[in-house]
């Protein structure tokens, strides 16, 4: 039997009961809408979070001393950091590479003191794509070079220390020999991000000044932070970089240097995937129901078809094609239903402040804004469409099988 004829017959069979078909299509479309929006929210959100974490931490891939992750003391350094940075820049997919020194310091004024994390940077090499706080200045500005006496504080930290722009701050840290060393700085800028971990516990210092104070060589540092355009390729880039490093130095992708964030994202993604599967199963049940009833209604017709020369395989193929049509039309309707809301949310984001709080929230030290952006990876959209089609076809398997098992004589006797 010709393929086009069967397809035509299957199409017409679909519309014998318009209302029922429309309802089933509606459920497929609904499922697609949910799946696409959920995934789009996740894709964008987690990508943003990872990028933000990268800009708060050590990039998407961090090159550091092998023992630094477990015991982050200032004697665990990376030598030849400039050469490593050059090599990293040459890797495909890498957008920026910066060299830094990070550690813990005690900041004090005449009357107060506070501990904080410090990040030693070369401000001429960094900007908002490498450093999240670079455009969060509420007062003042970044210090001009990697030399000198500048310091930038988080807003809460500045408050707790009781300092404002221009005031002096002493910073103490333990150098590679275990000696306490100190430096003097003037507050050149204050940043405010809304994230308590950053505002209350972070400061920026000039890289070369730190090198002198800590007795580092001119190209020594504690990390080389590598930023890439697509965070999904972190492992790839880390592996390639790692191969070029000597044995005391490693290149860690973000999920190894920030395992809690990785775990959190994995858990959320797992939860969302579970939801999507659950909804898919429920919708497939609905499709199954519809197809099954439509098959049982037509048993006599199938019997006649078998009598006049259709084979059971033809009948099964016919029902599967009805299932296929259902899936394809469902996809189209789903797409039409989704495109409007998606475009809107893509442009405006979803305001989750009712659920998350106006100032956003902070997870594993990374801030999450209260406006959820929406943007789906094209690969995921295709995956969802394919999955929807497969689910629809799967729902049709049993009804098709039943239809093919009709014994012609049984049904004709039903007159």
């Amino acid at each position, binding site marked *: 039997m010709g393929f086009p004829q069967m397809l035509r017959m299957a199409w017409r069979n679909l519309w014998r009961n318009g209302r029922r078909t429309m309802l089933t299509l509606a459920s497929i479309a609904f499922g697609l809408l949910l799946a696409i929006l959920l995934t789009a929210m996740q894709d964008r959100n987690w990508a943003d979070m990872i990028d933000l974490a990268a800009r708060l931490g050590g990039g998407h891939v961090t090159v550091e001393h092998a023992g630094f992750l477990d*015991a982050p*003391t200032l004697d665990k350094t990376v030598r030849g950091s400039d050469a490593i940075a050059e090599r990293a820049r040459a890797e495909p997919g890498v957008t920026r590479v910066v060299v830094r020194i990070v550690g813990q310091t005690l900041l004090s004024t005449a009357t107060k003191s506070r501990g904080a994390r410090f990040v030693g940077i070369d401000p001429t090499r960094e900007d908002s794509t490498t450093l999240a706080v670079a455009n969060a200045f509420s007062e003042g500005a970044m210090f001009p070079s990697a030399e000198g006496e500048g310091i930038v504080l988080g807003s809460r930290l500045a408050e707790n220390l009781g300092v404002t722009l221009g005031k002096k701050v002493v910073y103490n840290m*333990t150098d590679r020999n275990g000696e306490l060393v100190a430096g003097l700085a003037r507050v050149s800028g204050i940043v405010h991000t809304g994230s308590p971990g950053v505002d209350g516990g972070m400061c920026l210092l000039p890289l070369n000044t730190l090198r002198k104070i800590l007795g580092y060589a001119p190209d020594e540092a504690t990390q080389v932070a590598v930023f890439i355009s697509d965070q999904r390729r972190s492992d790839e880039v880390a592996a390639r970089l790692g191969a070029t490093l000597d044995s005391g130095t490693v290149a860690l992708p973000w999920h190894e240097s920030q395992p*809690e964030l990785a*775990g959190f994202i994995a858990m959320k993604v797992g939860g969302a995937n579970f939801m999507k599967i659950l909804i898919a*199963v429920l919708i497939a*049940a609905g499709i199954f129901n519809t197809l099954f009833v439509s098959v049982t209604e037509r048993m006599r017709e199938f019997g006649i078809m078998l009598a006049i020369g259709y084979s059971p395989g033809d009948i099964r193929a016919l029902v599967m094609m009805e299932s296929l049509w259902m899936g394809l039309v469902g996809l189209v309707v789903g797409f039409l239903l989704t495109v409007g809301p998606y475009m809107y949310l893509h442009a405006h984001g979803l305001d989750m402040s009712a659920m998350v709080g106006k100032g956003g*929230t902070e997870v594993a030290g990374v801030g999450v804004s209260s406006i959820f952006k929406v943007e789906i990876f094209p690969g995921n959209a295709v995956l969802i469409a394919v999955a929807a089609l497969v689910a629809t076809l799967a729902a049709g398997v049993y009804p098709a099988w039943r239809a093919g098992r009709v014994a012609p004589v049984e049904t004709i006797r039903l007159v």
Partner: protein
Amino acid sequence: MSILRMAWRNVWRNRRRSLVTVAATTLAFTVMVLYSSLVQGYLVAMERNLLDLELGDVQVHDPRYQDDPSLYSSIADASELLARFDAKGYAASARLLGFGLGAGADASAGVQIQGIDVVRDRRVSRIYERVKQGRWLDPGAPHEVVVGSQLARTLVVKPGDELILLSQAADGSTANDIYTVRGVLQGVSEAVDRVGVFMTDAAFRRFFAFPEGAHEIILRRPPDMDVDAFAASVRELAPNERVQTWRELAPTLASLLDSARSIMVVVFLIVYVAIGILILNAMLMAVFERIREFGVLKAIGYAPGQVLLVILGECAMQTLLAIVAGLLLAWPGLWYLTRVGIDMGKLGGMAMMGVVLDPIWRGVVNPSVFTMPLVTLVAIVGLAAAYPAARAAWISPIRAIQHR
């Protein structure tokens, strides 16, 4: 009664169709019950962690402390206040707070030093349960301190190692002493894990030359009092100080916890809408298949309301079956979730808004774990069944009987 019996038999008449609908509804309901248990478990644990480990129900500070959290913004008559609270039978304990530099053999970091009355503190906080290495403080060992896990990692210290603390004392001199690490805490809060050092109150007073007063008094409410009433009562007892409930101290967290509940309901609705469509479809098919039968019912004298009851009765039976089956299926799941829980692995110890998650995620069992999924399910099913039922109830008998 006979209508319900008819409804029951009708459900069994078309077993296969009923089976698919009931199976799908059961699946959805079971999953939602387990999900509800997990989310509520998470909320309960988070609130408990927040209150039991850090905030208590109500805190008292000197009015200056919020803007200027220094050694000097202290509650001068702390011991008198404590006596007043004791008289009222309120659980209360004072804390001394200071900042300084902590140094291990190889590294140093800024730390927040807390001096506590070890015995009293047990009444308001369960922080002592979170010692993962070594032991909690002992008033008889004032030179031994307990540190947060992140701090221990940063300073590379473990129980038995030495810790040097440096700071500025109340009289302006340099405070400087060597202590021994007695224990390491984990999973208290992000701040404590990162920079927390705990010592006895006597040790604190000696180190900081701070003989009197306290920076913070933590109170726990009696079980029969709600938080706001409790705060009001405390305010009366301490009119010169700043008294705040935990919600005022951590408003974002409070709203996070509140809104987590509404997120849960949204999830229910989404899952149930899928079920609703399935039920709507199934019921429409059933009604149209049996339209002649309903026409006969009306012809022999059934009122529309009674036909409505027949259909809704069938739907209710199916849903009831699904709920019972769902509960039966959920039971072992709930047992597992409450007894064993989900091992969060790497997530254990992760912080959300500064509050640390338990390493084992446990579900809870309380009435609302069941009632919320149930109520939402019934609402959606009712909505879905309304249209087909109305169609059947209001058909014209003659047209129905003549239907093909």
